[in-house]
């Protein structure tokens, strides 16, 4: 199973995880990461914009790279675009693999690239209006680990 998608509407990470698990009976391990809009901290909404001609092809190329680098039985990468609210899932990366560390590292690898090397721009709405989010230095350092 390989499911790489941009989603304009809310989604349920649990049901995607279960589908991956069912579709990967010979993979003993499934690792996942779910990123959500944080509650608290004064964020009222979060908007993710993207550039269609680059974003999905970039995610597909990232999935290719993960499948080449790690021995995987399945890979799911779902990423929201549009406006989200606190508690809403933003991203799900899940990998099924015969060996535990392939699954965990594939998720780590994909998340680092989605954070720093995928064509998304994020802004938050606070009481005083919208603010663009700058990339964090830590995200670039995380990405550099895979070079």
């Amino acid at each position, binding site marked *: 199973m390989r499911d790489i998608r941009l989603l304009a509407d809310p989604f349920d990470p649990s049901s995607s995880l279960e589908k991956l698990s069912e579709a990967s009976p010979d993979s003993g391990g499934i690792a996942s990461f779910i990123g959500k809009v944080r509650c608290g901290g004064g964020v009222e909404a979060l908007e*993710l914009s993207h*550039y269609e001609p680059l974003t999905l092809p970039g995610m597909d190329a990232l999935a290719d790279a993960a499948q080449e680098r790690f021995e995987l039985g399945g890979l799911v990468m779902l990423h929201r675009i549009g406006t989200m609210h606190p508690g809403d899932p933003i991203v799900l990366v899940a990998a099924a693999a015969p060996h535990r560390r392939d699954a965990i590292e594939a998720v780590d690898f994909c998340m680092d690239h*989605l954070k720093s090397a*995928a064509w*998304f*721009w994020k*802004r938050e709405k606070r009481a005083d209006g919208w603010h663009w*989010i*700058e990339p964090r230095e830590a995200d670039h350092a995380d990405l550099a680990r895979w070079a």
Partner: protein
Amino acid sequence: MAVTILFLGPLRDIAGEDSREVSAPLDWPGLLDAVSGDVAAQLKEERVNIACAGKVLADKTLLHAEDGDEVALLPPVSGG
């Protein structure tokens, strides 16, 4: 026909518009002239990329957009 310049992410706010049409062909000096001074300053920063016709340019100063091409101005990303 023309070249469409697309302002993405925070560059949209700096430009004050989503996109702009300019006459083809469009090269790097032409692009810097076509946008506001604030946007031009951003474009000169290394961390701002340019895509032409769906491909990110390895060297943005070699931009050469033709009739019908979309030129996307790509500020630093912040996904996930």
